[in-house]
């Protein structure tokens, strides 16, 4: 019953509740986007508990601070206010509900049987120093490919959102 243990459950509950709020909220699209932010931030909290500090900071900065703001921009620009569940989709919803229910049953039964203790951590785990070393020595190719991917995405987004192609 230590502090990280309790904190993990608090963050987990928050993440699940806001994820459910995001997909179930039909009337207010902006509230859905805000629930996504709460999910992101609580996941970042869980990352900190799992000793992934740099990843947590980047999650808040990139996901919570930029990606979801992009969603918010689009929702506000297009002035989307509400949505509704079409009657034809009710079948899908029942199927989805059944899927969720089965999953919860199976997972719940499995998880009730205790858990492993995580092993002790080496020094500097999850810090920027070790992560930077990994990124720039072992995984240098990934970094370069990501930069190419982001450039392509910027160009693509610009072209897609232009009003007329000259």
């Amino acid at each position, binding site marked *: 019953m230590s502090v990280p243990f309790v904190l993990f459950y608090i963050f987990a509950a928050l993440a699940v509740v806001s994820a459910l709020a995001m997909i179930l909220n039909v009337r207010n699209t902006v509230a859905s986007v805000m629930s996504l932010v709460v999910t*992101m931030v609580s996941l970042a909290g869980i990352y900190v508990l799992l000793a992934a500090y740099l990843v947590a900071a980047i999650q808040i900065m*990139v996901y919570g601070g930029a990606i979801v703001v992009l969603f918010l921009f689009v929702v506000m620009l297009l002035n989307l206010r509400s949505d509704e569940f079409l009657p034809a989709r009710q079948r899908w919803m029942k199927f989805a509900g059944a899927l969720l229910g089965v*999953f919860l049953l199976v997972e719940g039964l499995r998880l009730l049987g205790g858990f492993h203790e995580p092993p002790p951590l080496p020094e500097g785990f999850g810090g920027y120093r070790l992560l930077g070393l990994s*990124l720039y020595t072992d995984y240098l190719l990934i970094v370069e490919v990501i930069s190419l991917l982001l450039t392509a*995405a910027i160009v693509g987004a610009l072209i897609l959102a232009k009003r007329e192609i000259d």
Partner: protein
Amino acid sequence: MVPVDHVIGLSALLFVIGLVGVMTRRNLIVMLMSIELMLNAVNLAFVGFNRLWPQGPVGAGEASLDGQVFVLTVIAVAAAEVAVGLGIVISMFRNRDSVNIDDVSLLRW
């Protein structure tokens, strides 16, 4: 003492919630957000497993942060995907004045 097994369970739960969101919601923006939620669930699984095995794959003494490197990759890919996806949403909205996916579906069924 974070229960890492429950972390993996949480990741699976969030993934299924995201999946349910993609299947049932017809608003394209909420569908994109549900996809982001699925990607986040995968990130959580990566970080959880990395915490469970912080040493290298052969069991050497040094720390291996492969999971976290991959999480950074996934975040970057998600950012790129959201940028392009939202560009598509905006041009779709300009064409048909709706972001409901049923309105743009040209298939029979």
